[in-house]
């Protein structure tokens, strides 16, 4: 959106997906920008194999943008399929993201893309979510968060109660990454469950996120906090959506944390017109 003056903005299309059979299709996640102004994102479908892409949009001198496909996902069994979330950079320019499906057990991956020689990007799967692993997560929809060398994310399914987890991936130093489940959601009628969005972290190290369902009110989702203490993470449901004025079923967008500790987010449903809300959780 480009400023038009008078507080208005006009839309400028930078790229239309599907220009040829190799292009990505249907971008669900947002874009991130590097220091040079290049945009990076994912498409859920499309690419040379049809299972989604990671793309870069490069601004051209004199106007216009050029798309470069950095990675085509595939259904080889060891690859990820269908990236729903956007990407995150680490401090040295590597990209990280998730795929909803496939991997060795078919329930999603966490991947890394490193800049390689001659403009190529090299993919490495950091984590295969495993359906048989009752403690791990499965089917991640939310964006990852990179903080202090670790990746944090949510999985919409899997975990001890099979209704989702919050996980951390920590580099082991030998090229492998170790997954720790920080919290397993529980559909016991009170707890939050089915997180679809990513996380935000405050300066004290607490994590905040939303779940699409669960909570003590109407089961229409929650805003939750995870607080670390002595290596144990404790969950607090900050708000259970009721589906009326407050909204309901917060979806794929991560919360925003302002400098005062207030949280902002969107809910897909509920509100005065049952068409969703923008809400604030006051600190």
């Amino acid at each position: 959106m480009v400023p038009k003056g008078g507080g208005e903005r006009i839309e400028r299309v930078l790229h239309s997906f599907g220009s040829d059979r190799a292009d990505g299709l249907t971008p669900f996640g947002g874009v991130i920008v590097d220091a040079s102004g290049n945009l990076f994102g994912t498409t859920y479908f499309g690419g040379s194999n049809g299972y989604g892409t990671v793309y870069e949009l490069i601004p051209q001198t004199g106007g216009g943008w050029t798309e470069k496909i950095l990675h085509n996902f595939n259904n080889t069994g060891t690859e990820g399929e269908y990236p729903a979330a956007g990407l995150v950079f680490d401090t040295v320019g590597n990209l990280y993201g998730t795929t909803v499906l496939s991997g060795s057990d078919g329930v999603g991956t966490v991947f890394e893309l490193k800049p390689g020689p001659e403009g190529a990007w090299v993919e490495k799967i950091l984590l295969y979510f495993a359906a048989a692993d009752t403690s791990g997560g499965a089917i991640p929809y939310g964006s990852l968060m990179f903080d202090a060398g670790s990746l944090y994310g949510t999985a919409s399914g899997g975990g001890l109660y099979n209704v989702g987890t919050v996980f951390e991936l920590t580099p082991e130093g030998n090229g492998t990454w170790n997954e720790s489940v920080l919290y397993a959601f529980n559909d016991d009628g009170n707890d939050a469950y089915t997180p679809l969005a990513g996380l935000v972290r405050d300066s004290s190290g607490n994590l905040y996120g939303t779940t699409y369902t669960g909570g003590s009110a109407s089961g229409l989702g929650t805003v939750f906090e995870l607080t670390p203490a002595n290596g144990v993470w404790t969950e607090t449901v900050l708000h259970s959506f009721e589906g009326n004025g407050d909204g309901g079923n917060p979806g794929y967008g991560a919360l925003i944390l302002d400098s005062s500790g207030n949280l902002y987010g969107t809910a897909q449903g509920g509100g005065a017109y049952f068409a969703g809300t923008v809400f604030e959780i006051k600190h």
Partner: protein
Amino acid sequence: MRPKKLSLGLTAILATLTLANLVTPTRTAAQQVATLHSFNPNGEDGTYPDSSGTTRTGGCLRRRSRRRVGAQRRRGADRESAA
């Protein structure tokens, strides 16, 4: 011993403070929520937001929502709410 009578003014002040204590809500999680905007499917507003937002200098929130146009649903109603 006969207790001292409170003055009418002091009684009024105490009553006000007591009432204030009764009606002041306890700060609970549920009461910390404020709805900044309810999307309206009136053809002008966006509906069913499902993506991340961002902020800009000035404290305004920008969110992407879907806008239903006729039988089509398309993205792109960019709404701004003053914080």
